[in-house]
């Protein structure tokens, strides 16, 4: 009979662990990017015919203004819960830098926005497919819903600027 209190404590402990895990799973931090070797794998994500707004930022760990504006996309990710908006970070770091630069960067940062690593070197082929107006300079951000598209080359200097562009699409 003396076992019970101990056992109860054990179960409480177990539930605690499970609970904590579930909670941390909900606010899961991104440390491993999804790697796409071919642009064709990413292309559908840039052209979904739905009523969801997609905010897709092209960046790289070596690009200082890109890294500087990452917190804005994080802030957006946190504010849109429950809305039909998806935020994605597409890293165009080189394939050879995936393990040595991108992953350590993501491990250090505590990003909640999903990260895709696009390692397709055929830039001449895919830059136009992201947007015909894109010169290839980063940062660059595609914001779209269905057929309505906005493309911003260069960085957002504050959250309001990003939010306004999203709202233009949202018609809010």
């Amino acid at each position: 009979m003396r076992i019970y209190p101990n056992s109860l404590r054990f179960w409480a402990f177990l539930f605690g662990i499970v609970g904590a895990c579930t909670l941390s799973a909900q606010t899961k931090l991104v440390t491993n990017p999804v790697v796409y070797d071919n642009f064709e794998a990413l292309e559908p994500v840039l052209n979904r015919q739905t009523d969801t707004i997609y905010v897709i930022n092209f960046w790289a760990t070596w690009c200082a203004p890109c890294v500087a504006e990452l917190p804005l996309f994080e802030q957006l990710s946190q504010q849109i819960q429950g809305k039909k908006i998806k935020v994605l970070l597409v890293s165009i770091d080189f394939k050879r830098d995936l393990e040595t630069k991108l992953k350590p960067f993501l491990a250090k940062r505590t990003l909640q926005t999903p990260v895709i690593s696009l390692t397709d070197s055929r830039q001449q082929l895919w830059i136009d497919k992201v947007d015909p107006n894109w010169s290839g300079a980063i940062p660059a951000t595609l914001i779209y819903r269905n057929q309505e598209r906005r493309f911003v080359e260069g960085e957002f200097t504050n959250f309001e600027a990003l939010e306004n562009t999203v709202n233009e699409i949202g018609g809010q």
Partner: protein
Amino acid sequence: MKNTIRWVISLVFLSISMTALWSQQNTGGLKVGDTAPDFSLKSVSGKTITLKELKNVKGYIVAFTCNTCPYAQMYEDRLIQLHKQLSPVGWPVIAINANDPTVTPGDSFAKMKERSDEKKYPFEYLIDEGQKVFPVYGAVRTPHIFLLDKDFKVRYIGAIDDNAEDPTSITNRYVENAIQAIEKGKDPDPNFTKAIGCTIKVKK
């Protein structure tokens, strides 16, 4: 009343033409076939470089680049190689740093000189002081190449080649092929390419 209407109409027309002019300037920059304007810019060599004053040239490889952009750095050795290979046959590289050093201190004239000495740049490395040249050319990223023939006609705009990451996997050396085409009296194909690069850092 008639006067007011006339005023309103002329104002509307004025604003329309102003907007048209403004947007034209914004999407401006050189296109293939345009004649590029000359410039006089200070080089790390101590000279002031004006294109038309260069001797024995068949054309110019005008390269907007900088010290600090990792993409520009990746192409640094290839730019040196290009100049070594093509300058003797009349196609020198003219490198221009268009970044504002108050935004990226690593792109100051002193730092340019440092980098140029360190890597023994065989080409002139100019600073676009006051950032007046790059917008006229329409350079938007580093590196960004504008290939001009001896008459300053723009023949090719874009990347140096098609693989920034791995020089051993290049399948098209755009600039070299463009020059070969021009030498044969043909038009380069492609005459315009896109590539990833850093934005040019404009004074805030």
